[in-house]
């Protein structure tokens, strides 16, 4: 096993010591990052969204910045702005917090749509344009956004097209009894976080990302991905089925998951493991205002026999 791979597993282990009882979510987040995707964490305040994002940045040794989204946040507060330099007699660009390797966009749905779209554009293009100049963002570049469930007051729900920019959406949920007890007796996770070593170097991360591209996806697996996507398109419970972009995301995330399971080929099980994360926020329910529930997603899987 390569050093990078060993370090990946120790990353998972170390993160598990900070965020207790959430190994599955940690693995999903890492799979998302390894598949070069942005991550959306949706849950109630106080269940550890920010801690998870912070821990991952810390363990990966990446330059980290955090923006707390509010309703009066402006696009320039994220991207940066041009300032007049009196000495040189010209404008020069002062980069905003987005110029980092991991951007934690906290409570993204509290900002106005205009600000949201500035961020989401940068996520897609991996560059920002200001005053006619294009500035490339550093690599790797991840956005880990958190949002509160949209029924909370004072939120602007992300439009569908922008939800699609996130490779995965995960929720954390309440910790189980043991984990919560450990949390209550073991001291502040933030303190433990500050002592975390860098477990996976940037070069190693990039090596792993390219290794994931080599995880074998056999024709029967592609058939399965197609069958699953097809199933969402025929289901009247949803407004639309999954897009081809979502199908690509599903395959990429599945490969990353297979890689983390220590396999050189992706299996239907891997696709099924990442399916709720990849499809959940992309399938809007035809009735009511929400997105597909865990039950909907499990049902979709159960209705799709393996080809």
């Amino acid at each position, binding site marked *: 096993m390569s050093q990078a791979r060993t370090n990946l597993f120790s990353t998972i282990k170390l993160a598990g010591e900070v965020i207790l009882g959430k190994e599955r979510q940690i693995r999903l987040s890492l799979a998302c990052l390894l598949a070069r995707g942005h991550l959306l964490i949706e849950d109630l305040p106080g269940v550890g969204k920010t801690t998870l994002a912070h821990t991952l940045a810390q363990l990966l040794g990446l330059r980290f910045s955090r923006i707390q989204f509010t309703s009066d946040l402006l696009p320039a507060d994220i991207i940066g702005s041009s300032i007049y330099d009196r000495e040189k007699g010209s404008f020069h660009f002062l980069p905003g917090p987005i110029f980092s390797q991991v951007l934690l966009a906290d409570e993204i749905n509290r900002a106005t749509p205009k600000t949201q779209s500035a961020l989401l554009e940068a996520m897609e293009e991996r560059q920002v344009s200001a005053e006619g100049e294009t500035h490339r963002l550093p690599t790797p570049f991840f956005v880990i956004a958190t949002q509160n469930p949209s029924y909370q007051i004072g939120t602007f729900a992300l439009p569908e097209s922008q939800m699609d920019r996130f490779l995965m959406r995960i929720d954390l949920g309440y910790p189980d009894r043991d984990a919560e007890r450990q949390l209550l007796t073991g001291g502040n996770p933030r303190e433990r976080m500050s002592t975390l070593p860098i477990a996976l170097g940037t070069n190693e991360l990039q090596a792993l990302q390219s290794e994931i591209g080599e995880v*074998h996806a*056999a024709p*029967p*697996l592609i058939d399965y991905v197609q069958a699953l996507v097809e199933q969402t398109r*025929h*289901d*009247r*419970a949803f407004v639309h089925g999954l897009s081809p972009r979502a199908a690509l995301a599903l395959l990429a995330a599945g490969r990353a998951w297979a890689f983390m399971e220590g*396999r*050189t*080929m*992706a*299996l*239907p*099980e891997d696709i*099924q493991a990442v399916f709720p994360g990849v499809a959940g926020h992309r399938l809007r329910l035809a009735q009511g205002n929400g997105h597909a529930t865990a039950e909907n997603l499990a*049902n979709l*899987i*159960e*209705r*799709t*026999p*393996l080809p």
Partner: protein
Amino acid sequence: MKTRKHAEPLERAAVPWLLTCALATAAPHASHLPVWLSCLVSGVIASRFWLWNVNKPLPSRWLLTLLVIAATAGIALQYRTILGRDAGVALLVLFMALKPMEMRWRRDAIVVVMLGFFLLLTHYLYSQSIPTGLWLMTAATLQTATLVRIYGGSQPPAIIMRKAATMLAQAAPLMLVLFVLFPRVSGPLWGLPQDAHSSRSGLPDSIEPGSISDLVLNGSLAFRVRFEETPPSNSNLYWRGPVMDEFDGRTWRPARLEREPVPKIDALGKSTRYELTLEPQNQRWLLALDAPAALPPDAHLSPRMQALSRHPIRARSRFTMQSVLDYRAGIEESASILKLARQLPAEGNARARALAKSWQEKHHNPAAIAAEALQLFREENFIYTLQPPLLQENSIDQFLYETRRGFCEHYASAFVFLMRAAGVPARIVAGYQGGEINPVDGYLTVRQSDAHAWAEIWVAGRGWQRVDPTAAIAPARVESGIADALPAGESLPVMARVDLGWLRQMRFRWEAINNSWNQWVLGYNPERQREMLSRIGLGEIDWRGMTALLSVICGVLLAAITMWTLWSRSRLDPAQRAWFRCCARLKKLGMPRHPWEGPLAYAERIAKSHAGYGEIALQAASAYANVRYGKGNPLDIRIIAAATKRLPNNWRFT
């Protein structure tokens, strides 16, 4: 290992499907069930739905038993029996409603569906029309969909319905082959129990003023005719029904005859061949075109030249007949029939008698006497109407001298009376006149509203001659039909009206469809079958040959389906086949794989629940995963096969 017995609980979500089935199959029976039973049945189904909705337990066995006994007693009281069509269907409907009340297991649900299929069949005992067929097709799809739902798990209803419809569509070729080739017996498609023959409207067997005009208000179908060549003109279409020769002063009826010879009919022109499809009327009349020349095997000609079948027509039946429009008949008519045709009541209608006597003295020629009578109708102020005033005693005199308003039976009756009083043998013929050609399929449609009465006089040396006095007053009646002949403003059934062009077109079309349904689906009898088979080159085939052919075709169809299934299985790659074999073995050991479950996940599940087989399953699963999803060596298939062999292979007969 303990075998599981039918104890699979019924999914909650399948209940509405089953209740919809119960409703769909029972509801159309409501039209002929007693009201209390319909209310009971809908109440039971509604309360079952309510129980489902609020998730309450089902009623106790005691309560249900009590309900069954009470309702069965009610049915027995209502019908005075629990056997026969009506009572039997009522019981079935009752059970259909009550069975869901004790529906707990999957097996109960299957009973409900099967009962539903059976109940569907009973609808054909009441109606065999196209709408019934369509409704039953829909209900059968719903039943099949319910089976799919019960066994196939939760899916969107549209997908379930589509699956069921596909399954039925796949069965359609087999159905068609069975329909065409299954050996037929004579008689209707469905043998109806005796209590199915209620009174039918049709020609009366006696005529008094008003008996035909009542019938004319009835727009229902009497029969349909297909001519082999161009149909004769409307004024030649006299469909001969009962002949009335006995008059009691008010009512005309056929006299009771001793054995009489059948009159000889000489054709003067060429004969017309046609096929007549008679609606059930519970009479023996075949209503052949005047005068019948060749009759179907089961019919004979009466002494009054009427075509009669051996048995009353109780189901829609088809007859091929031949008639001559230009004929000479009964030149040597027997004395007793001629005597009947001269008979009059001893007294009454003195003025008419006197008038006839004056004609008799003036002319010696019967034809001239008849011409006098027709001239009287034509020249005096007689009116043809559906709403004549009521006639009292001396009805003929009253009609001829006072009211002068009447329908065909008044004119025929007065005419025959006058002829007899003048010494000319005469009688009334009832039947239908004219008909309407449906431009869509070319069939001539004759309705009850085409009912008519005309007269026949006997002339020495020329035999019986048809005289239609109505034609003298209202020539349009005979030339173009009843609607044109009546004064404007008289009400006629919608079906006989000629205005409303688009409605007429729709009606023609619908009737043509209905007629083909009757001719080819309901009337698919041994002859039709022979005709059909000779069209496809199987002319001389008896029922044995047909059965053999049927078995061969069904066998070939089934074999083709089997081959196709086997072929699609052989399309599986070898690794998949080996893996499925392994899964089948594990399934027999009580660990079935879900169709959506990946190999490793399956093996891990087995390892958790049946530790003994976990290792074998994991071996096979990872070998399979390697070959199918990885770049594994095809030789790994042997690992799957070897692992499979290590699993015990015990057959369970359940």
